[in-house]
């Protein structure tokens, strides 16, 4: 509507006195600003409403159990006792596993594509890696059940536990059934890989050519050039990519639910089953009929939200820190 008005003013512009034309465009500008501001405000408003809705719905559970909701391992819908500690623990541990595995892989792929790969290899490989992001979560889950779990149970877990002798440590002890925090962490690693790799690749490609040439001109080897001139320049962007991957790992639901074994227990062993907050909600929401149960699930949702915010906050701070120190260097 406003555009039509503006157009009309401009169309009549030749006959109309000049000041009116300026007023007209100023109004159009103002409308434009207002509309965009309204759009922009919608997002924080949505976020705020989400927090309020989750907070109100989860409040009865927080009030009933207090701090124990975050520290207790008892989740008993029949008795109406809820403690989300195993789910919080599982969420954090599986995400850490995912990042430990996916970061070197993702950054490595990105470096290969930006600095080492011949031009005709770059496009197909980049496309394939990006394609990983397009696979639906449930497909990852099915692949996990039918391919990853048997491999873990029969090959990788016995190898880690017995051949490498890691079974003596608490991290790899106990029976290996397959569904475990390790399995969930590995599937998450595959799922976050494209995010880390795609963003790192773009950032690395954006490093100016002069940066590389200068390093080479000083007699640096290719590795020294990458380490000394390329990575420091791209560092904050790479960290941003890792954070995006972490966000995805924290909230991922379906594939994790299918592979983690869904057990309310904190176990140091990565071979043991666990739980995550997202899978807890996915599992129980549909059939939760008591008010307290629903409230407990909402409270888990709010906890997940808060943890994601904290992690993102730390990440922002990291990027900012790196950006600040990094900017002095080149």
């Amino acid at each position, binding site marked *: *509507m*406003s555009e039509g*008005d503006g157009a009309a003013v401009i169309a009549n512009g030749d006959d109309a006195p000049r000041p009116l034309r300026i*007023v007209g465009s100023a*109004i159009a500008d*103002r*409308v434009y600003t*207002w*509309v965009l501001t*309204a*759009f922009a405000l*919608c997002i924080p*408003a*949505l976020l705020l*409403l989400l927090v309020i*809705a989750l907070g109100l719905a989860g409040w009865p559970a927080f009030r009933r159990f207090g701090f124990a909701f975050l520290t207790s391992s*008892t*989740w*008993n*819908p*029949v*008795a109406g006792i809820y403690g989300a500690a195993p789910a919080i623990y599982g969420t954090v541990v599986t995400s850490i596993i995912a990042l430990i595995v996916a970061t070197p892989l993702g950054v490595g792929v990105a470096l290969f594509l930006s600095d080492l790969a011949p031009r005709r290899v770059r496009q197909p490989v980049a496309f394939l890696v990006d394609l990983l992001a397009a696979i639906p979560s449930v497909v990852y889950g099915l692949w996990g*059940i*039918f391919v990853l*779990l*048997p491999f873990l*149970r029969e090959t990788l877990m016995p190898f880690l536990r017995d051949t490498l002798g890691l079974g003596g440590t608490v991290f790899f002890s106990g*029976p290996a*059934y*397959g*569904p475990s925090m390790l399995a969930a962490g590995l599937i998450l690693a595959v799922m976050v890989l494209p995010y880390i790799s795609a963003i790192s690749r773009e950032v690395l490609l954006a490093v100016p050519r002069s940066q590389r040439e200068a390093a080479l001109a000083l007699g640096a080897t290719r590795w020294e050039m990458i380490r000394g001139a390329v990575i420091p320049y791209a560092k904050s962007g790479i960290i941003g990519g890792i954070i995006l991957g972490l966000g995805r790992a924290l909230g991922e639901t379906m594939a994790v*639910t*299918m592979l983690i*074994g*869904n*057990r*309310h227990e904190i176990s140091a062993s990565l071979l043991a*089953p666990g739980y995550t907050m997202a*899978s807890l909600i*996915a*599992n*129980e929401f*549909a*059939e*939760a*009929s*008591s008010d307290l149960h629903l409230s407990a699930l909402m409270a888990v949702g709010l906890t997940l939200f808060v943890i994601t915010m904290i992690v993102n906050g730390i990440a922002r701070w990291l990027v900012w820190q790196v950006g600040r120190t990094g900017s002095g260097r080149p």
Partner: protein
Amino acid sequence: MEHIRVMRFIVATTAAVFALACAPGDESSSADTAGKASTSGVSLTGAGATFPYPLYSKWFSDYANNTGIKINYGSIGSGGGIRQLTEGTVDFGATDSPMTDEEMAKAKGPILHIPSVLGAVVLIYNVPGITQQLKLTGPVIADIYLGKIKKWNDKRIAGLNVGTSLPDADILVVHRSDGSGTTFIFTDYLATISAPWASGPSRGKEVQWPAGLGAKGNEGVTGQVKQTPGAIGYTELIYAKQNKLPFASVQNAAGNFVEPSVETVTAAAAGAAERLAPDTDYRLSIVNAPGAQAYPISSFTWLLVYQKQADQEKGRKLVDFLKWAMTDGQGVAGSMDYAPLPASMASRLTERLGTITVGSGT
């Protein structure tokens, strides 16, 4: 100046529209309009249990072909069905576990439980090297799921399966991780037959499992059991039959080991139906039912309707459909591996449908 004022008005209106679009109330208001739209049409809407969904969708399509009345059903789970019926957003609900008194009290009026067909839960297993069907009793199943029986060659399992060479392997217990009517039937049975289970995990759509792994859905449990040597799990009878899984025969109240099948499940309902009180509300459990051929881990699945139907047209259509389900519908059930209700019970239920009042009763 006038121009600017008009502009301001436009902007304000636009902002208000956006604000409305962002508001959380949006969802409920659109649900309201959807509800109104369906009122003016002829169709009925229902929501609830996923277990009987394949049968219900066949029922609804058959019924639409016969009568032209369309019924929409969302298989969103029993809990969701109860919630939606309580809020009055659907015309009928469906559930695998009867509503509790607390849930009934929250509803907008008295709710009738109408058993539609029967379901059963079977124990599937992956024990390397055995060829005969495994025999189990309730207390043994309970102790396996309590984590007290840890090996397949445990004396108590071996004692029930003389002649079968059971391996010295760990038992991996697999249960459902998602809330489910299947879990309710299974835990209801265990709580009925085993005192330690009743005082421990007890019965529910989700319980605190003392042992094992949780897998999502029937297919998750099946996948886990199939893949892991030494695993035991539970699924719905139909699911196990359609996927040709080996399942155990279970000792019933009469002391016989009974293999789950459409006939033995209906037999369980017949055993229970004989002892029904005349004024029963049909919220009854038929686990461990009497009867020589009754399979013990059986249960009804229910349709839920308000006894007072405010909307005359809809109410009448709903009652007609329910009567059809009690008669012609039962024949369809058997052909789809769902155990039909015993004939005597179906006719009693048809009479009970007469107690539904239609019209300005509210």
